[in-house]
């Protein structure tokens, strides 16, 4: 046999059974799901002219008189984002400690908190917003409530996971000198998990801004209401400015949070 013959790094040179089976299963699964989602090449191709037509509508002179309203609604969206994230942060810190296996006061508390957090993030913001809109009425308030609610679900879980990977030796170093329960969490757990916390908050802020931008869909405040109305009323002269402003705000926030994180860590 020629020594340049290609082979896999297995005893017999054939592909390993496990990965091959998984790959085959994935391909089979994809093949089965194509009809289920009505993936139709002909339909996609015939849709191209319509997409171009829609794109052409967007390229109209923006509605200048609408811009101040857009600014105000965008500001409201931003305020909702920051407020909801801040509220969630304050609630998530203690919940994160309780949901971390190595910092929780009791296994029962650990499991209960974990389940609570799962429940909170089980449904998307939009669904909770529907619930809160029917509870407290239209406006940004139910939006903030929905956003905070789901954010606690995610933030608490992320915080707990950051706490669970801290170095046990550093904990022991503080514990051995007679620190109390809460002191141990403040002085040994918190400093170690802090960089992860900052990363989580930044990521969630970014996510919440985009979530807040669609909450208007169900009447829970923010720019989303304008977006939906412009779409439904064929107000193309408003649609592009709204989309652009969301893009700009998200990008700016992203850049700022990157810079902030680098300075802090």
């Amino acid at each position: 046999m020629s020594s340049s013959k290609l082979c896999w790094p297995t005893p017999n040179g054939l592909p390993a059974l496990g990965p091959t089976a998984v790959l085959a299963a994935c391909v089979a699964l994809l093949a089965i799901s194509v009809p289920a989602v009505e993936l139709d090449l002909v339909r996609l191709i015939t849709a191209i002219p319509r997409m171009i037509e829609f794109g052409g509508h967007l390229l109209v002179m923006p509605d200048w008189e609408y811009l101040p309203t857009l600014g105000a609604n965008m500001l409201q969206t931003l305020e909702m984002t920051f407020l909801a994230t801040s509220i969630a942060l304050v609630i998530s810190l203690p919940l994160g400690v309780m949901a971390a296996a190595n910092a929780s006061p009791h296994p029962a508390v650990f499991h209960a908190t974990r389940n609570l957090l799962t429940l909170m993030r089980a449904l998307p913001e939009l669904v909770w917003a529907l619930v809160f809109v029917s509870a407290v009425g239209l406006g940004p308030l139910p939006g903030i409530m929905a956003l905070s609610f789901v954010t606690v679900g995610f933030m608490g879980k992320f915080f707990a996971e950051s706490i669970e990977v801290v170095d046990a030796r550093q904990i022991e170093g503080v514990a051995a000198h007679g620190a109390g329960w809460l002191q141990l969490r403040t002085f040994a757990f918190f400093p170690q998990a802090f960089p992860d916390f900052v990363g989580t908050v930044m990521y969630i802020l970014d996510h919440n801004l985009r979530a807040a931008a669609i909450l208007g869909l169900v009447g829970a405040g923010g720019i989303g209401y304008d977006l939906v109305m412009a779409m439904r009323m064929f107000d193309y002269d408003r649609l592009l400015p709204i989309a652009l402003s969301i893009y700009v705000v998200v990008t700016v926030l992203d850049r700022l949070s990157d810079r902030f994180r680098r300075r802090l860590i």
Partner: protein
Amino acid sequence: MSKIIIKDVAKRYANGFEALKGVSAEIPAGSFTVILGPSGAGKSTLLRTINGLETPTSGSVQIGEQPVTHASLREVRAQVGMVFQHFNLVDRLSVMTNVLTGRLSHRSWLGSLLYLFQRGDMDIAHDALIRVGLTDKAWNRADKLSGGQQQRVGIARALAQQPRVILADEPVASLDPVTSEEIMGLLLEICTRDGITIVVNLHQVELAKRFADRVIGLNEGVVVYDGVASGLDRATLSRIYNRNGDQVDEQLETMLAYA
């Protein structure tokens, strides 16, 4: 300042490993005691039962008049400082804050939530840093320091606590010989000047001979020697470093050559 009484302490881990098989010892107040033994002899386990980082399966430990129990843990730890092989400082906190964590047992949880200390605590921490010669690094982050410096911070943290006992678990195992010398010297100075009882785990026979008042030799969870450091002769050492009844190898010869 406090004597330590260890009575029939046995420790069996959850995986069935028997680290200590009934160890008894009395460590006099203000003495400098070294626990010597090969890896896995139970040195760390023994030391950690003294401040309750390990709970003995049977037997008891008493510091001064205070028995070490689950209920008395915080009181015990408030009197017992500890120095670790890997320093165990909180990396992201400043040297000063790390030293101040030695004061936590004297502070309330509410103030600590906001990282508040008293002026007096700062003075004590500052004095501790003077003792170890690190005042110029007080506001550096702990993980920016060299190993030797971090161990000095570890000692300062123990000192800031104003303890009656300091336990040191292989305090020089991660350090070079010169730095090891300095650290051991520092511990001895603390013992003689402040009268703090010091118990050190070591695996360097030579350091044990030079610094210890008293040596406890441990092998496979049993005390095989308990006496003055000068009593560490060839026969004693081979008893301490004996493994599974085999005659000890050349490693001991090398060790003895240096001792």
